[in-house]
């Protein structure tokens, strides 16, 4: 962001950022503006997602869902937020008052701080931190601290169960997530989110998902681990309604409760954005190759539409993933605690470990074999390109075709007409 501001000061205001007196002021204003914008984005996204998720859930359950406030009920989240705002802020007398009040802030902080590094498009992010991915992992750990505090401070046994479950779950799943995230890091050679994206390409076969088998397997491991970290079904044990009433937030009401839900829905974006960045090519626009982009940058002539299109691409991928997460939530039952643990420690952690080692070995070997050329995207009609494409077809296209065929069959079996936009 600093380079971006310096550019503005240099090009638009005609001042030298190093010597101009108001530079620090411009930085401050820009920082505050960015902070407000990002927090607002997070809150708005969380609110809209809550409405969207409820509508999707309703469609899946042959219900209607919220459709009264605003067109198609899109303003439902405002009504909910208003209702929660004016609700009495109940703090049970037996609770630890200070911790009880502090918990939601931990949770919200852990969620909002991730936006500092998350990219939204080409050059569109608050900072380009060189330890971006590491920062995301460490900051999201704040959420579990908040959840644990809320469970403990409520002085309710159900909440305590939820808090302890959350702690056990998130701490366990951090390990496969942290390990498997090293696969794209190794492939890109950087922890910077933008660098990871720039090492991939625009077309699906240029994504890390379809680059190597390690990337392909890593994507699914990361997906499962992030589902668990975000407390989403089938890993929604900390708030398992049918077991723990409402889990760690049982005793919360009003705005404090709203913060927990803000985070839960907002985490959908964080989760999907991290995965889009690491495996799905981020904001890379299909058709704009790396050389193209480099040429534009060298000439300081990156066209304005590229910013917009790259942001749209990134958001589209992220929202698609978020929808998959929602879809999974309303399809699957919940796993049991021991199953959750054994899945993590017996399967995901060893698999992630193996993937990291494999990825490191492959990177090393390909570097030994091809030298710097290994880093460069192979053109489609070369041996490496064709191998990549075949892998993409086997791993991406075939499952997709099979999935759609099965879905259409299932729908027509029950006797419904298949309408692509509404009933599947």
């Amino acid at each position, binding site marked *: 962001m600093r380079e971006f501001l310096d550019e503005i000061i240099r090009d638009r205001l005609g001042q030298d950022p190093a010597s101009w007196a108001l530079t620090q002021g411009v930085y401050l204003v820009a920082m505050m503006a960015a902070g407000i914008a990002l927090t607002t984005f997070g809150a708005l996204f969380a609110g809209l997602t809550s409405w969207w998720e409820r509508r999707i859930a309703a469609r899946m359950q042959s219900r209607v869902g919220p459709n009264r406030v605003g067109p198609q009920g899109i303003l439902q989240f405002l009504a909910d937020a208003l209702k929660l705002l004016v609700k009495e802020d109940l703090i049970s007398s037996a609770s630890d008052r200070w911790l009880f009040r502090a918990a939601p802030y931990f949770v919200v902080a852990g969620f909002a701080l991730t936006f500092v590094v998350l990219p939204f498009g080409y050059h569109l992010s608050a900072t380009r931190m060189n330890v971006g991915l590491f920062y995301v992992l460490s900051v999201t750990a704040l959420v579990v601290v908040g959840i644990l505090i809320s469970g403990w401070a409520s002085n309710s046994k159900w909440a305590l169960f939820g808090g302890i479950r959350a702690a056990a779950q998130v701490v366990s799943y951090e390990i496969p997530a942290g390990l498997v995230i090293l696969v794209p890091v190794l492939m890109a050679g950087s922890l910077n989110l933008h660098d990871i994206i720039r090492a991939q390409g625009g077309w699906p076969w240029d994504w890390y998902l379809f680059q190597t088998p390690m990337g392909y397997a890593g994507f699914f491991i990361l997906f499962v681990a992030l589902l668990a970290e975000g407390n989403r079904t089938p890993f929604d044990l900390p708030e398992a309604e*049918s077991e723990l009433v409402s889990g760690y937030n049982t005793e919360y009401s009003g705005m404090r409760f709203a913060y927990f839900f803000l985070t839960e829905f907002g985490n959908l974006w964080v989760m999907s954005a991290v995965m889009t960045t690491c495996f799905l090519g981020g904001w890379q626009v299909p058709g704009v190759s790396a050389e193209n982009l480099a040429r534009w940058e060298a000439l300081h002539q990156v066209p304005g539409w590229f910013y917009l299109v790259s942001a749209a691409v990134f958001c589209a991928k992220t929202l698609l993933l978020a929808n998959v997460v929602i879809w999974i939530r309303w399809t*699957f*039952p*919940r796993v*049991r*605690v021991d199953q959750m643990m054994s899945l993590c420690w017996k399967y995901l952690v060893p698999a992630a470990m193996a993937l990291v080692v494999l990825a490191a070995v492959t990177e090393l070997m390909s570097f030994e074999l091809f030298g710097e050329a290994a880093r460069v995207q192979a053109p489609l009609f070369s041996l490496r390109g064709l191998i990549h494409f075949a892998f993409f077809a086997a791993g991406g296209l075939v499952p997709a075709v099979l999935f759609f065929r099965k879905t259409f069959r*299932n729908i027509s*079996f*029950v006797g419904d007409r298949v309408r692509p936009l509404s009933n599947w």
Partner: protein
Amino acid sequence: MALEQIVITRKFGPGAEEEMILNMGPQHPSTHGVINFIVHADGEVMKKAVPEVGYLHRSIEKIGELVTFSGFMPYTDRVDYVAAMFANEGYAVAVEKLLGVAPPARAQYLRAISCELNRIASHLVAVGTMAMDIGAVTPFPYALREREYVNDLIEALCGARLTYNYHRIGGVAFDLPPDWAPNCHRFLDHFDRILDEWDRLISLNEIFVRRLAGLAVIPGPMAIDYGLVGPNLRASGVDYDLRKVHPYGAYPDFEFKVPVGKGFAGKNRGGQVGDCYDRFYCRVLEMRESVSIVRQALHKIPEGEWMAKVPRKVKPPGGEAQSRVESARGEMAYYVVSDGGEKAARVRVRTGSFMAMGIIEDLSPGLMIADLVALIASLDVVAPEIDR
């Protein structure tokens, strides 16, 4: 040792200070009504779960002694409001036995049809809530949607959707309305496919199966010893269905199978005879059989009266009779004692849920809290039927 710990140890025995006592209920999302479980848990694993029932006790048996024989019929609906037809039928059969009246053939068929439809509705609630208790929310509205169709049919038949009061002493209250049979056939054809969809939606879901396979296994002899009945008993491998073994009403005329548990979850997933998954799947299979029974009944139903000649004032001669019907929650027995008066001297309802609750305390040690929820759901207990 702190004073608190000494007190706890004295009260609950050594090692008790390690355990957490949780009150699960009476207001808890998955206790299926107002039931309280006092859970002694060590972390996630339970040492014991003691059911405390009685929150829904409405002294229906006492009411039976205070109102006339025919006046008690609406109260029987409240014994089990998820499957009220069976409660109606049980009482009607018991009083008919005392009176020495036999309902006409058409009434017997109407009873069978209404009961089997009600069984479908009740089992839909059972399997739907079970899926929800395991954490899958979507199957539940699917089940309730189909139940609404059944309710529509039953409403057309008797005017009520929940507390039917359809069976009367000596027959049933109303004949089939016009166009009812084709509508019912349409529903049954639709429901066959829905059951297949149900299997794909939840019954064959890997997570769901693995959650339930080999969980809270009740072997056959244990089930008999604890007096489990109905699907819970059959899931334990005991091939016993009143409709088959001691056929009553119109049931001798129908062909149907009795689903018996045989470890449906499969050996590789740890499925055993009498586990929670068997109890779940037996209910799914029973719905299929009910569909076939309703179809047969609609084809074979004879013309004629639907109400026997019963005096306006029901005054059975002195004596006692027990009726046994195969309710959705298993064998339901009404034990009615008459002293020759207008009111019964004693009405006793023996229900399946009451006995099913009795087994939970002995099954619970070693289960997890999430498993307790699954166990309660798999036994398909309904609070009003426990407490009456």
